[in-house]
């Protein structure tokens, strides 16, 4: 019976191990190739970049990091780009996590890596206490978000950090948090997330502070709902979002390059402009993984097409017999 199976029958029931092996090879090989493929960033990514670049340099950015190593393919790239942008703009920021106790260690690792990279490029390190404050993890994401909206000084007030001299002090004595008396004093409330903490943030803080979000592809559809209702200023979704940001870090938004060519234009909002970054790495994780993403998605399309072709062919065969 097994010998009588036609090619079409086989196509309908390809062993999952074969599919998995092809996927592994197809996604692993392009990882060794870094290519700067041309792209037209999504409108939500354009708004994300424009919002981030438009924050006045003297205002502190709140950065909520709710991702762990599992989603580093996407959120790792978001985080690196955000750090690079903030550091290039000399923007002060406060960083903390609500979703997972693992998350602080993960953003600290990214911070360390970017700082080392900057040092190797002859750029100054971003220093804790002076340039940024790391508040660590807060349990009970929803309760803490309500508290942040209600009284940020009380919510973060119990945290202490070492100043430049190594003396532990209340974080609100730091240059980063000193000007903050309510969440609305932040230049931007930025969430990098792989979970529903974006829902809590929008539900509890909407209207109190400007918000933007970088999230995984899976969370993207629900985050885009808030973008469409203008509760989020911009959203960078998944790996495409990472690459979109990197692309704009290189070419800016609605700005002409040296050759007089506008690489990224925003036809819906022609007045919104954002310059490219002036220092540091611009193409990073996004450009490393972008080819792999194409290969993986190409394989998914191929698998769907083959499955359907097989199904139709065997149906036809059944009818004939």
């Amino acid at each position, binding site marked *: 019976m097994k010998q009588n199976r036609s090619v079409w029958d086989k196509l309908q029931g390809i062993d*999952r191990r074969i*599919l*998995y092996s092809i*996927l592994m090879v197809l*996604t692993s090989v392009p990882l060794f190739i870094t290519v700067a*493929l*041309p*792209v*037209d960033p*999504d*409108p939500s990514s354009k708004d994300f970049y424009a919002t981030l670049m438009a924050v006045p340099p003297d205002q502190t950015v709140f950065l909520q990091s709710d991702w*762990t*190593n*599992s*989603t*580093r*393919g996407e959120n790792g790239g978001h985080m690196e780009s955000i750090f690079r942008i903030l550091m290039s703009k000399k923007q002060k920021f406060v960083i903390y996590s609500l979703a997972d106790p*693992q998350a602080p*260690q*993960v953003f600290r*690792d990214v911070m360390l890596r970017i700082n080392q990279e900057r040092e190797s490029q002859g750029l100054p390190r971003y220093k804790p206490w002076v340039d940024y404050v790391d508040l660590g993890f807060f*349990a*009970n994401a929803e*309760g*803490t978000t*309500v*508290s942040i909206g*209600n*009284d940020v*000084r*009380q919510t973060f007030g119990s945290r*202490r950090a*070492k100043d430049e001299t*190594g003396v532990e002090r209340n974080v609100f004595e730091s240059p980063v948090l000193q000007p903050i*008396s309510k969440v609305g004093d932040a230049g931007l409330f930025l969430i990098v997330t792989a979970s529903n903490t974006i829902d809590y943030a929008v539900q509890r803080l909407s209207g109190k502070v400007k918000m933007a979000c970088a999230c995984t*592809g899976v969370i993207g*559809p*629900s985050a*885009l*709902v808030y973008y*469409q209702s203008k509760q989020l200023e911009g959203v960078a979704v*998944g*790996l*495409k979002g990472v*690459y979109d940001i990197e692309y704009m870090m290189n070419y800016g938004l609605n700005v002409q390059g040296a050759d007089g060519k506008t690489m990224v234009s925003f036809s819906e909002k022609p007045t919104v402009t954002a310059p490219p970054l002036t220092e540091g790495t611009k193409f990073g994780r996004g450009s490393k993984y*972008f080819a792999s*993403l*194409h290969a*993986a*998605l*190409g*394989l*998914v*399309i191929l*698998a*769907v097409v*083959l*499955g*359907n072709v097989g*199904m139709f062919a065997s149906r036809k065969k059944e009818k004939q017999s």
Partner: protein
Amino acid sequence: MILAQLDPRLNFFGKAPYSLELWGYVTAVVVLGIALIVAMTKLPTRARKPLIWTSTFLAGGFYVLYWLWPQPVGRGPLDLPRNSVEAMSFWMSDAQVKVADVANILTAFLLCLGIYSLLRVHTNRILRKHEDRFFSWVLIASMFGMLVLGYIDWRQRTFLDKDGKLLEMANWGFAQFGKDLLFDGLFQQMDAAMFSMIAFFILSAAYRAFRIRSVEATVLMISALILIISIMGAVVYGWNNMITSMLPVDSAPVLNNFKISEIANWVRSTLQTPAIRAVEFGVGLGALAMGLRLWLGLEKGGVTV
């Protein structure tokens, strides 16, 4: 709640950080908490019901009142309330942070119960010489290994390393290397490995599910394919440029609508987003009704029994 809002110097926990006095208070409260939990587990089921309902009603009542009561507008850190309504709103807004803290502390106590369950299941397996007892050994060893090394590392970094030497790997000791191996070297990587398995599962699920079996399945497949292609930046760029090159200069013809990004944005904003909103309305209403039933003790059977 009220105690916590007293003057910091009179406050029960307003002692100097890391002082012996504070440690004493913390230990006493932990012991008291455990005693309370043990006492509650000994209560007969009949006596538990009113207790559960009362605490649910009080906790929920606070948040309901907090939400209904007018919020203070433009409140500064040193502002005094102008009238009794504002005094109440100031009080509730201060108390909310403390209530959130209480919830966090309760979660910590409950985590101990979870760990107790885990240890009970796995020690039983080891004692009964279950065939998979090796995994139970691994679990217990990893749990205590991470706990001990994590604690030593935290203690050294927080109390002993005044000038941040431990930020450099060259100054690391056994605890730092051990924690790094267990957390960054093993745990984080295994976490990422588990997540990456989803890629394989997505492939096999897509292969199985996206078949043209009915009209609905066809619509699902076509919209999925459009959105998949829209994430392939290079393909979209090429296709869109091709469309642009076909357009006559200075016009806005219909052809523009055939750009993949346009079609994908249309699918997202016209089909996907409203559908998600509709589902969210239903889910939100369900949660509202469920919360209401729990708060008012209207549920019979199940959780409120």
